[in-house]
């Protein structure tokens, strides 16, 4: 145990040195495969959330939206507009009012 601790101390001292002459060992670069959480949780609110659930979850999870502060309606309209115009989200035009309504209802500010 003591031996291991000393070894670690020596190692970290070597790693922290800024001497350019220090020859570093080539770090191993190994193939990597991971699994990411799906982030498929729905927006709460039942049928009031249908429009936002149907249009917004393909590109991002709901938590980001639910973590936003309360914002004025104009700000939410602008956010939804940015998703459509800039980020090309294929949101049905007829669903936009229901999405904005949901955001104003849950995250609105006058």
């Amino acid at each position, binding site marked *: 145990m003591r031996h291991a601790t000393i070894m670690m101390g020596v190692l970290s001292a070597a790693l922290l040195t800024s001497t350019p002459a220090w020859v570093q060992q080539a770090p191993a670069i190994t193939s990597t495969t991971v699994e*990411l959480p799906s982030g498929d949780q729905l927006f709460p609110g039942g049928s009031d959330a249908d429009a936002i659930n149907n249009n917004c*979850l*393909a590109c991002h999870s709901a*938590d980001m939206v639910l*973590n936003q*502060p309360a914002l004025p309606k104009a700000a939410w309209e602008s956010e939804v507009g940015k998703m459509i115009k*800039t980020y*090309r989200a294929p949101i049905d035009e007829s669903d936009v009012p229901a999405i904005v309504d949901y955001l104003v209802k849950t995250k609105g500010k006058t």
Partner: protein
Amino acid sequence: MAHHQHDARTQALSRRTLLRTMGIAGLTLASSTAWADGSIRLPIAGEPRERPLTHEFPQKGDMILQRTRPPLLETPMEVFDRGVFTPNDRFYVRWHWAVIPTSVDAGSFRLTVRGHVNQMLSLSTDDLLKMPRVELAAVNQCSGNSRGFFSPRVPGAQWAHGAMGNARWTGVRLKDVLDRAGVKSGGIQVRFKGLDEPVVPEAPDFKKSLDIDHARDGEVMIAFAMNGEQLPLLNGFPLRLIVPGWYSTYWVKMLSDIEVLDRPDDNYWMATAYTIPDTLHANITPGQTGVKMVPISRMTPRSFVTNIADGASLPSGANADIRGIAFGGDTGVAKVEYSVDDGRTWQLATLGEDHGKYSFRRWQTNLPPLAKGGHSFMARCTNLAGDVQPAEPNWNNSGFMRNVIEPLHITTT
């Protein structure tokens, strides 16, 4: 690689189809995060402050969950108290697009160098390992770190102060790679792209550019290791661009494509996104319009207390050890000072070991006993260029470049 990307996109699109056809059947509500490791209350400007703590992400320990997909994971403040370098498994994570390859084969991975060059290159990680190696300690900080403290609030990731980290990056100089390809005269910018892709193919790919002189300054590097180990996939495995002193938006993850341009890059991520008001501290009045906007670039000095939380109680009649971290932004830390009288007088804190001008620097002080009651502890960093943290917070529409002095409220009892 293309195969994995295709899979990821198909998965994202079928998720959409699934949601459309099935509605709520078979899916859970956002309020139930069964895999959360408890939660944390962030000291940001307003509700909601509660965030789950999660260890559900690959190669990551407990992180503050800001967004599951694409991942936005924040480093808890206590991690910065444990050492000057941020461990890889606690280093914050930020992705723009949800199509992130979940599998990268080290053998078949190639970094392409193309565009306004004499010779196009296709480099394997082995090719890079054979080139002259450099190592540098540098802070990586999100442009929007601390956005949650902006008032009035602005939309975007509601980070507290943990969208930053400090690591020893090992790799090769970008200059050496560009020289190998041979930049043709007339090459004025270099554009970088990673393996991540938008879910909607028509959406703008995430690409960032640096001026050619910056790209060839010998400091900008292509890293294959972080704190002595290969990068976690979510921090950009296998290669990440390191732009010391500049905000993280330029530190392209899973770097796979380098393109030398003979014209200024006008892509969305340079021309529109990540632009700031061309004013001191990128500061404007809320609602102000007609401001000249420029791409965000250099970082500014910041300092944080890491061993005491805002609102903490200290025993009266006793000295108190207070410590934290600071960084100078685009140059080193000259000094860290603290004040316990609302900024009227300042004392020097003791600086820890210097790991280079782009690194975090630890600082500490032993505070003499304070009178019973409420106090404000302020720390401020001055960098080697004489730039000091301001006393008043900045504001802009994007929540970028916060570097105000962050007072800590303490009560002595």
